[in-house]
């Protein structure tokens, strides 16, 4: 789930400089230490803890449980049975709605929930990559909603308003949408670079501006509104522009997922292999040092927001060309712009971490709806579980305290202020 942090990866040069420890602890001991103190276990336990809290909430608000608790001292067994039934019912619905449905006869039908998970995960991953990339440059792109809306509008307009050959049409709409998102994100980057305007304010404001702009476009005849309709909704996308999909086989999965996998690889390459990515990370670590090293910090802000906006734009394009192809309204972003922030946080701003986090949250989303339909548990519980997961993962000491796990050698794991002893002594 969580990618190993970049600092733990050792280059060949490092291994030569590290002096060999005299008495080497046994391999088993090391492995045991790694498992009990490592990130992976913390992540698993965090998910577990969050699910336990969710279970408590489900049990306490369940009507059968409340009824049974009324005569708890007469027959305590009833209460526990009711608790078990409510919680296991809800969580098995969550599982069957997101991974595999055992009640279906064939494998092809049983696996459908998994494809739903991937469909829900697609915009989450794209958006998470955008937010995470901005995080790595030390910027907080809270404007995913605006960037998605603008991208969706541009892509949608290109997709329903023009007639182009099959394949090319889709490409044009995709690229147009990406440019729209990049433009909307780029405004915030440009203003930060040129005037020092705080990107948090600017992106929040741009969210509202985009929302009202798109609302106006949607209700004005001749712009985005479907002809002959008075609803603030666009006409459906043309078939030539829609992402290739598996609808004829009964799945909602579409090409967007492949695009997002490619985007993940691209962001990984940008961040860890390209010189632009090196400059991104340098500015993110310490803009002053980066400036001294000769990096043009303002232009990095602009580039970062352009790419971040384009990635959130990809999430918007996914919505209109893949998920909702029958025309869209101003609510097309579906809150993904904000969910993307939690995805990026859970993925610790690393591309593959975000990919995994997006899959997990996609599963929660897909399963949450089927849980609401089957068991009557409001889908909002998914928000609680998701936010608790991020909170727990961000605070490993808390999880260790709860499960009484050993603390990994107090020191090296904890980040320290970047000052040497000589400086502090002054």
């Amino acid at each position, binding site marked *: 789930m969580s990618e190993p942090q970049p600092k733990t990866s050792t280059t060949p040069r490092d291994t030569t400089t590290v002096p060999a420890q005299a008495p080497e602890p046994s391999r088993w001991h090391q492995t045991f230490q790694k498992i009990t103190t490592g990130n992976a276990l913390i992540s698993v336990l965090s998910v577990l803890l969050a699910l336990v809290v969710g279970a408590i909430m489900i049990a306490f*608000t369940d009507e059968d449980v409340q009824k049974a608790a009324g005569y708890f001292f007469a027959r305590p067994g009833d209460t526990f049975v009711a608790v078990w039934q409510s919680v296991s019912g809800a969580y098995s619905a969550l599982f069957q709605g997101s991974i595999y449905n055992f009640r279906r006869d064939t494998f092809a039908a049983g696996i459908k929930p998994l494809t739903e998970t991937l469909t829900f995960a697609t915009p989450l991953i794209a958006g998470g990559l955008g937010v995470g990339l901005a995080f790595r440059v030390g910027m907080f792109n809270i404007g995913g909603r605006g960037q998605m809306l603008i991208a969706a509008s541009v892509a949608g307009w290109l997709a329903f308003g023009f007639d182009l050959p099959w394949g090319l049409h889709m490409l044009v709409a995709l690229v147009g949408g990406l440019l729209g998102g990049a433009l909307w994100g780029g405004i915030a980057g440009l203003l930060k670079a040129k005037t020092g305007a705080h990107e948090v304010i600017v992106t929040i404001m741009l969210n509202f501006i985009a929302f009202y702009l798109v609302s106006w476009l949607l209700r004005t005849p001749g712009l985005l509104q479907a002809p002959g309709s008075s609803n603030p909704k666009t006409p459906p996308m043309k078939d030539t522009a829609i992402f290739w999909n598996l609808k004829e086989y009964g799945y909602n999965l579409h090409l967007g997922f492949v695009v997002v996998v490619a985007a993940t690889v691209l962001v990984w390459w940008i961040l860890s292999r390209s010189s632009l990515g090196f400059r991104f990370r340098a500015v993110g670590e310490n803009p002053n040092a980066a400036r001294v090293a000769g990096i043009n910090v303002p232009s990095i802000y602009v580039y970062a927001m352009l790419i971040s906006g384009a990635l959130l734009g990809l999430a918007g394009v996914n919505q209109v060309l893949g998920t909702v192809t029958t025309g869209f309204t101003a609510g097309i972003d579906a809150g993904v712009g904000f969910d993307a922030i939690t995805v990026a946080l859970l993925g610790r701003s690393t591309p593959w971490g975000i990919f995994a986090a997006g899959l997990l949250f996609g599963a929660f989303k897909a399963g949450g709806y089927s849980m609401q339909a089957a068991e009557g548990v*409001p889908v909002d519980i998914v928000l609680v579980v998701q*936010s608790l997961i991020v909170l727990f993962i961000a605070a490993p000491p808390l999880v260790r305290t709860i499960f009484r796990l050993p603390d990994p050698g107090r020191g090296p794991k904890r980040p320290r202020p970047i000052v040497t002893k000589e400086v502090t002594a002054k």
Partner: protein
Amino acid sequence: MTTVTEHHQVSPQPDALATTVVTSWKAPIAFAVFTVAALALAVFAPREGDTTYRLNASDKDAIIIANISVPAMPALWAVVVLLAVATAFSVWLVTQKRRVPLWLVVVFAILFLFGFLTWAGAGAMLPMINLLYGSLSLAVPLIFGALTGVIGERVGVINIGIEGQLLAGAFTSAITASVVMSSTGSMWLALFAGVIGAMVAGALVGMVLAAFAIKYFVDQVIVGVVLNVLVTGLTSFFFSQVLAPNAAVLNSPPRFPRLPIPLLSEIPIIGPVLFRQTLIVYLMYLAVIVVFIGLFKTRWGLRLRAVGEHPQAADTVGINVNRTRFWNVALAGTIAGLGGTFFTIGSGIAFNKEMTAGAGFIALAAVIFGGWDPIRATLAALLFGFASNLQNTLSVIGSPVPSEFMLMLPYLVTIIAVAGLVGKVRGPAAAGKPYRKA
């Protein structure tokens, strides 16, 4: 207050050190943009008729002011000329290496606003009292939220979770007030319970933020964002599961009645706007004054700011940095919780999912826009309130502009203001950085 170093003219001494004066073209550019916008209105969208400004709340006021009528187009042209003069003056100031003074910005803004209102209200009557009264009401949660943000950042903890605190306050006040109302039947007791409940809820969210930020060193922005999601999820879940099925008992809150203050409420214009409000608004006045005086005139405020600016120094003189942070963030949470009451018992509306609708984020913008100063943040929040109520008012009298563009206006103005006038804002030095005792 942020310290502004004034560079006075150096007395003519032969060996005086040359003082550098940092001037910026941002203000003239922003002025020019607004002047061109006003000119465009006058040239491309001329309107006919007079604009009438109505300055009385009702005909029963003790002192009646006559309505003021202004011919729309001549007034707009006069405004355009004045704006152009102000722009030219600011350009001259900058070429002379002098600062553009704040009063010029204020005069410019008022002029522009007058021009726009006169243009938009041509041929109709503008109820100014209603406009201002509504603006103040809409600004109430934003002001409470902004005060919370100011205290938090001044003590060194960035609070993105204002939205969550407002929502928690709205939720808790609705439940507690409804329950107390249905069990005791006393409205004032119910309202009092609602206010206390909201303050406790806001403080609890603040404590979670502080605990994770201070004890577990989690990035403060992360905790804030996540807390927003968490509170949204919790309140929505309990709303669907518990509140909605039992709405009569759990979600039918009473409403704060209007309490006109004798004498003060009879002052023309100011009275009906400021002194015929509800108790929550009076509490808001009190909160702004207390926070301002507390931050800048008391020992508590000095310590708080010291912890936010230079925790090492504060620690050296014996201030417990982390304890100061924790309790002040919790205290600030009570203010945001109080702000949340506006949505439910302040307006007599039942709680609904996500009913704060981004007010916490606007409050956050007001904090930064206002330069981490309680008074200026309040003014910024009032600007947002005014702009959203302007849209309401204009849509009633028939606005010439599509309502979406009017709704967009405050956000557009904020961007221009932040980019053009405020520019590189500098918050408290240690905000967002956890403190570890060496």
